[in-house]
């Protein structure tokens, strides 16, 4: 059993902040098939279309039948830890700081033998399950976990190194005026965040849920308007050095397409609140996040974007909104590359219509704000990069994979 995570001591202000180091992150183009699975929390290996052999490590031809038709498919993650060793000395700067480090060999039931990082609760000779995790460099690695949940297993240092668990971390929710921001505040407190800053723009404007939000334990309301550079910069100046997870909940959902509207007033607001808001948060909080990627138990861990799944394919009924979400998705990909040197992850949570005011006329299925918040927590605990939350998001994702042109036509059908 892992030792429970203890609340980190207050940082010694005289001690230098250690710079984030990364494990070796180079992968072949083919091996990024594992990265794709790890980003979504799936366990996928190459399976030969010709002879059904399950392969590891990834390659370009089947070692059994020489077929080049090797497809990444979800396979069973269960196996047995057949050998283990503890590395005590390394020349690699990243691992040197983290010695000793257990590694082992897992015989997977699906076939291949895989060298993996070992969770502290795994035992040689026993059953384990493998997980594909994104390490600090953002590349996929194998982590062997005990077959069953063990007490405090998420406190394991290997696990914590590869995930963004909110426990004892300090979180900023950028906008608490709406249902999603409020659900997010509640969920992060329940997940054990040590403080949840919740931004409120125009505090002179009352909003539903105001008293309940202020009443949540460990929530601290802060003035923050993502459309105001000065406001974002000021908050980052005050608290940027002690915020470990930023969740951008700012939203501006309005129906209407391009030609359906008669001017740019709404589009300006949409861009300002969503896209420029994200840029302001990124510019103000990004540098400190990237610098603090290895700053102890409560190191900087993640920047969370809530994105409409229609960022991936336009939904003309909410066409201008979809376009702005697409811009945010593109910026998120950029931020992911920019934050990677700090070992800080960018989580994109894609969702369809929400059970909120501006989707009132949209028929179900719709996603409840609390379900979205819980999915974000689960994704951070698992160290994921991309999640598709709810039926509509998953459906759009599958149809996009199958036939993007059909999806475009169907979303645009009147």
């Amino acid at each position, binding site marked *: 059993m892992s030792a429970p995570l203890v609340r980190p001591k207050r940082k010694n202000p005289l001690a230098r902040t250690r710079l984030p180091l990364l494990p070796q992150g180079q992968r072949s183009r083919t091996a990024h098939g594992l990265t794709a699975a790890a980003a979504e929390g799936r366990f996928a290996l190459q399976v030969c279309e010709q002879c059904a052999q399950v392969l590891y490590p990834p390659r370009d031809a089947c070692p059994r039948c020489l077929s080049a038709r090797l497809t990444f498919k979800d396979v069973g993650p269960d196996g047995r830890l057949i050998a283990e060793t503890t590395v005590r000395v390394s020349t690699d700067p990243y691992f040197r700081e983290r010695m000793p480090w257990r590694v082992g060999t897992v015989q997977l039931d699906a076939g291949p033998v895989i060298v993996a990082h070992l969770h502290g609760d795994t035992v040689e000779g026993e059953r384990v399950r493998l997980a594909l995790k994104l390490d600090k460099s953002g590349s996929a690695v194998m982590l062997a976990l005990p077959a069953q949940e063990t007490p405090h297993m998420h406190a394991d240092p290997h696990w914590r190194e590869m995930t963004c668990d909110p426990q004892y971390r300090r979180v900023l929710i950028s906008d608490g005026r709406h249902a999603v921001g409020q659900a997010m505040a509640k969920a992060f407190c329940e997940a054990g965040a040590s403080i949840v800053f919740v931004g409120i723009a*125009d*505090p*002179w*404007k*009352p909003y539903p849920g105001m008293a309940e939000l202020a009443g949540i334990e460990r929530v601290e309301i802060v003035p923050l*308007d993502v*459309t*105001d*550079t*000065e*406001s974002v910069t000021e908050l980052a100046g005050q608290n940027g050095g002690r915020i470990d997870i930023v969740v951008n909940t700012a939203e501006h959902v309005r129906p209407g397409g391009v030609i359906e509207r008669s*001017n740019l*007033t*709404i589009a*300006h*607001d949409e861009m300002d609140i969503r896209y420029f808001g994200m840029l302001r948060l990124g510019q103000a909080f990004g540098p400190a996040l990237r610098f603090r990627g290895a700053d102890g138990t409560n190191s900087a861990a993640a920047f969370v974007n809530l994105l409409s799944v229609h960022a991936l394919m336009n939904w003309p009924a909410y066409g201008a909104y979809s376009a702005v979400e697409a811009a945010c998705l593109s910026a998120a990909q950029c931020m992911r590359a920019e934050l990677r040197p700090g070992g800080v992850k960018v989580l994109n949570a894609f969702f369809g219509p929400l059970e909120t005011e501006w989707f009132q006329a949209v028929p179900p299925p719709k996603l409840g704000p609390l379900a979205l918040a819980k999915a974000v927590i689960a994704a951070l605990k698992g160290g994921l990069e991309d999640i598709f939350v709810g039926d509509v998001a998953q459906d759009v994702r599958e149809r996009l994979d199958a036939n993007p042109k059909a999806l475009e036509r169907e979303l645009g059908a009147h």
Partner: protein
Amino acid sequence: MQIQKHSNANSAHTERKFIMATTDLLAFANAIASGAIRVVDLTQTLSPEFPTIVLPPEFGQCAPFRLEEISRYDARGPAWYWNNFTVGEHTGTHFDAPIHWVSGKDLPDNAVDTIPPAKFIAPCAVLDCSAEAATNPDFILTIDFVERWEATHGRIAPGSWVLLRTDWSKKSFADYAGLRDDGAHTPGPGPEVVKWLVEERDVHGFGTETIGTDAGQAHHFNPPYPAHFYMHGKGRYGLQCLTRLDQLPPKGAVIFAAPLKIKQGSGSPLRVLALIPGNAAA
């Protein structure tokens, strides 16, 4: 040559007029410099935090003030500091032109770029409702109230701004906006008094300390938003988000309020200055 000669013939006359004018204006400038005339700034600072009017969210909204730094003696511009700003026409201390309201849409010279510039300087009457508004955020100005004021201070002169002092500018932003679940609660004029001020007193315009010239609940009046409807319908002007009205005498101040010259603009943020006698009670 002919033209030159003609202008020379008139030069003596022009010069005499010019000297007279400069003499008077210099005396005026000297009075300002010496403090015999005091300048009171009635303008709120344009800042991102200052409340703007809130309309139902399905309508277009007035943009708040935003500042984006271009450079500040840094790599973006080594020796200079400057900003870009964005703002709505009706943000912060601002001027309403008649074209702002549907009742004034067809009047001549009804936009900020076409209003004759002489209209930007006018005397004012300051109605002090601060005591009434202090206990009642829904205080409504009536004809009766103005007549009682006139009994003390004399009739409002034609062509005067009427400024409503409520001390609203001294409130916290939340109390200033006064938003509750049934809308804003801020003081303003009733329909009858606005019509009366225009028709019986021929006023220049109406100015307030609140977010709008109308009361917070004025959408329930008949007509809705009477200060907008009647003032702009008769080509009069509006000023809102004023401050320091408590420094003005009831009568005798002159207001300088010139909006930005926006092509067909419905209004604009502006600097509003009051000139008052230096010995006027503060």
